C-alpha cells in the first residue's frame, strides 16, 4: 500500500501513461465525467487515510487470505531447467487475485455512500469477486456477462447467483467481455447517482487503471519481499498473463524499479497469431481508443473493434490496460503470445508435476515461463499464478476428453 516509488511509471493528472497524449486518458461521455472525478477524489483521499488503509489491509488478511504464499515449484523447475517460483494468488478467497481489487473498490463504494455496484466479467472471476464483496458489505450487485461467456462459465454464473448477485447476459456485439463492459457503462450512465462501477481490470478511463493498480500492487510488493526472504536475491525474470492486465500490472509494479529483473507479459495467442484468431493485443494489435483509454486494440482498418479469440474467457479481450501499452513502448516489459494449445499443455503439466490445477489464464503465464526458461537456463523465474482452475474444468474436460473413468488425458 506504499505510494508508487517511481513517477516514471505513473499516470499524470489526466491519466496519461508514458507522456501526455500517449496511452490512457479519459475518452468518455460527458455524462460520466462527474462520476469519474468524484471517484478519483474519493480514492485519492482514501489512499492517504490510515483508517481506510487499515480496514482494507485487515480485510485482505482476515477475509481474503492475503498475503498469498510464494511457492517453490521443485518438480516443475526440474522439468523447465530453471528455478520457478509461483505467487499463489490461486489460493486467495474466490480463487484469484481479483479479490484484492474488488475489496478495495467495494470499500470505496461504501465510503462514497453508494448502495449498488455493477461489474463486467469475462471468465466470471471478477463477477464472483464482486458478488462476494457486495455480499460481505451488504451492497446490491449486478454483473454483466457476455452470453457466450455465461455458457462456457456456467459454474461461475451459479456462484454469483448464490452470492445474491443478478447476472445479466449480454447479447449485443460479440457477446463477450468487451460487450459486457459496453453494457455496464450503459447501466452506469443511467444509475450513476447511487451506483459504483467496479471495473475488473487495470484498463478503462482514468482513474481506473491507476486505481486498480493501487489495490493490486501488493501482489508485486509481497512477491519481491518473499523472493528476497526465500532466495536472498531478486528473481532474474517475472512473468504473468495479460488480458486487461490487472494481475500482471500488480506483479510488475513491485519490480519496475529493479532494472535487473526482466519482465514478461503473456497474451492469449489463441489458434496462433498468424491465424487472426487470438487476443494478443500488444503483440499484434495497433494503437486506438477502446473503453475510454488510448491503448493497443485489435481493430480493422476503419477502427472497428475486431473480435478476439482465446480458450480462456478471462484473456478474451481486444484491448489492454494503458500502462502495459506504455511499458511495451518503453521496452521495460516484453509482451509475447502463448497459444491455446501451449496453455492447455502447461495446465496439464502443472497439475501433474505440482498437484496444482491453474486457471487457463494463469496457464498462459506458466507456458510462457517455460519458454523463458529455455533462454535463461538455471535462472530464477517468478510467475504469478493468478487464479485456480476449478472454473475451467468444463473446458478441460472437453479439451482433454476427460470425465470417463478408466482413461487418462
Amino acid at each position, binding site marked *: 500500500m506504499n505510494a508508487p516509488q517511481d513517477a516514471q511509471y505513473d499516470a499524470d493528472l*489526466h491519466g496519461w501513461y508514458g507522456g501526455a*497524449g500517449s496511452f490512457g*486518458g*479519459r*475518452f*468518455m*461521455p*460527458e*455524462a*460520466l*465525467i*462527474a*462520476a469519474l472525478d468524484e471517484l478519483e477524489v474519493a480514492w485519492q483521499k482514501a489512499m492517504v487515510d490510515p483508517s481506510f488503509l487499515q480496514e482494507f489491509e485487515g480485510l485482505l488478511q482476515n477475509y481474503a487470505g492475503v498475503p498469498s504464499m510464494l511457492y517453490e515449484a521443485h518438480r516443475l523447475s526440474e522439468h523447465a531447467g530453471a528455478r520457478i517460483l509461483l505467487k499463489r494468488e490461486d489460493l486467495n478467497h474466490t480463487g484469484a487475485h481479483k479479490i484484492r481489487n474488488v475489496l478495495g473498490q467495494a470499500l470505496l463504494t461504501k465510503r462514497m455512500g453508494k448502495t449498488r455496484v455493477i461489474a463486467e466479467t469475462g471468465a466470471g472471476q471478477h463477477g464472483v469477486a464482486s458478488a462476494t464483496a457486495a455480499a460481505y458489505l451488504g451492497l446490491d450487485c449486478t454483473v454483466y456477462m457476455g452470453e457466450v461467456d455465461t455458457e462456457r462459465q456456467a459454474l461461475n454464473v451459479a456462484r454469483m447467483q448464490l452470492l445474491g448477485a443478478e447476472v445479466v447476459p449480454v447479447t*449485443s*456485439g460479440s457477446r463477450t467481455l*468487451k*460487450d459486457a463492459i*459496453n453494457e455496464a*457503462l*450503459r447501466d452506469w*450512465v*443511467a444509475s*450513476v*447517482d447511487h451506483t459504483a462501477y467496479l471495473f475488473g481490470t487495470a484498463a478503462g478511463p482514468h482513474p481506473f487503471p491507476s486505481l486498480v493498480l493501487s489495490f493490486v500492487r501488493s501482489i508485486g510488493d509481497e512477491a519481491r519481499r518473499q523472493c528476497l526472504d526465500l532466495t536472498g536475491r531478486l528473481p532474474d525474470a517475472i512473468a504473468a498473463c495479460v488480458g486487461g492486465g490487472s494481475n500482471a500490472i500488480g506483479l510488475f509494479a513491485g519490480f519496475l524499479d529493479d532494472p535487473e529483473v526482466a519482465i514478461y507479459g503473456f497474451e492469449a495467442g489463441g489458434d496462433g497469431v498468424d491465424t487472426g484468431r487470438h487476443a494478443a493485443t500488444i503483440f499484434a494489435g495497433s494503437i*486506438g*481508443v*477502446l*473503453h*475510454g483509454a*488510448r491503448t493497443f*486494440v485489435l*481493430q480493422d*482498418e*476503419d*477502427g*472497428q*473493434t475486431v473480435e478476439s479469440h482465446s480458450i480462456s474467457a478471462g484473456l478474451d479481450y481486444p484491448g489492454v490496460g494503458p500502462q502495459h501499452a506504455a511499458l511495451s513502448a518503453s521496452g521495460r516489459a516484453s509482451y509475447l503470445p502463448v497459444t491455446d494449445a501451449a496453455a492447455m499443455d502447461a495446465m496439464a503439466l502443472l497439475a501433474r508435476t505440482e498437484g496444482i490445477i491453474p486457471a487457463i489464464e494463469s496457464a498462459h503465464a506458466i507456458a510462457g515461463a517455460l519458454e523463458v526458461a529455455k533462454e535463461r537456463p538455471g535462472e530464477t523465474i517468478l510467475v504469478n499464478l493468478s487464479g485456480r482452475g476449478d472454473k475451467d474444468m468444463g473446458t478441460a474436460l472437453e479439451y482433454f476428453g476427460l470425465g470417463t473413468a478408466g482413461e487418462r488425458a
Partner: protein
Amino acid sequence: MSTTVGVAYDKARAEGRAALVGYLPAGFPSVDGSIAALHAMVDAGCDIIEIGLPYSDPVMDGPTIQAAAQQALDAGIRTTDVLRVVEAVASTGVPTLVMTYWNPIERFGVDRFAQGLYDAGGAGLITPDLTPDFAPEWIAAADARDLDKVFLVAPSSTDERIALTTAACRGFVYATAVMGVTGARETSSDLAGPLVARTRSAIEASAPGLPIGVGLGVSNGAQAAEVASYADGVIVGSAFVRALLDHPGDLDGARKALVALTEDLARGVRS
C-alpha cells in the same frame, strides 16, 4: 464548401421557432437506403441532419440505434461510405453533421477525416465520447477548416464543465436531456430544463449566441413542442430509426413513416 449549422439555427430563430435536428446512421438500411431516407427527412422539414458513423462499441446508444448500426456494419459499411452519404445529404443545402465515436476518426486520421468531411460539404462533428479536454487534435483540425465542433453537456455536468464545453463548441452545444443512453422515452425529462438554464448562463459568459440543442428521448410532436419551449433545437434519433426498423424491406412504407414523423415533429417545434 460546408455550411455551418449556425445558418439553420439563425433561420429558425428568425421564424421564432426551434430547429429540428434529425438523426440516422449511415448505411442503414443500406448506403443508398440511408441517403433516400435522409432526403425524405430533409424534404419533410428537418433543418439539420446528423449522420451516425456506425461503430462496433457504441456505449452511449440504446438497443434501437445499436440494432441499426450493427445492421450497417454487418453489411460492410466503411468510413468512406459515410462520407459519401454526407456528400449526398449536404448537397441538398441542409447543414449536415456526423455523429461519431472517437476511435474510427483517430484510425482514419483526424486531419484526413476533417478534410474528407470538408470536401463532402459536411458541417462538422458531434462527438459523444470525446470531451474538449481530450480533443486538441480534433479542435485544431476543425478550426483550420471552420468545421462545427459539437460537444455534449449532461445533467451531471458541473457548471465549470459546462463553461469549458460551451467555450469549445462551434455550431451548437448538445444537451442530453436524461442520464442514460439514446432511445425514445414515454415521458419527458425534468432534468433537461434546469440543464438548459445552466448552459444558457454559461453561454452568456463564454460563448454568446451559441444555440442549445436538446436530445435523448424525444419521439413525437408533443414532446418536441415541450422541448422547443426552452431549447433552440430539438434532436430526434431513435424514433427515426424505429420508423425504419418497423418497415423492413418496405421502402414505401418506411418513407411514409419517416415523412409522417418528420411532419409531426416539425409542427411540434413550431407550436
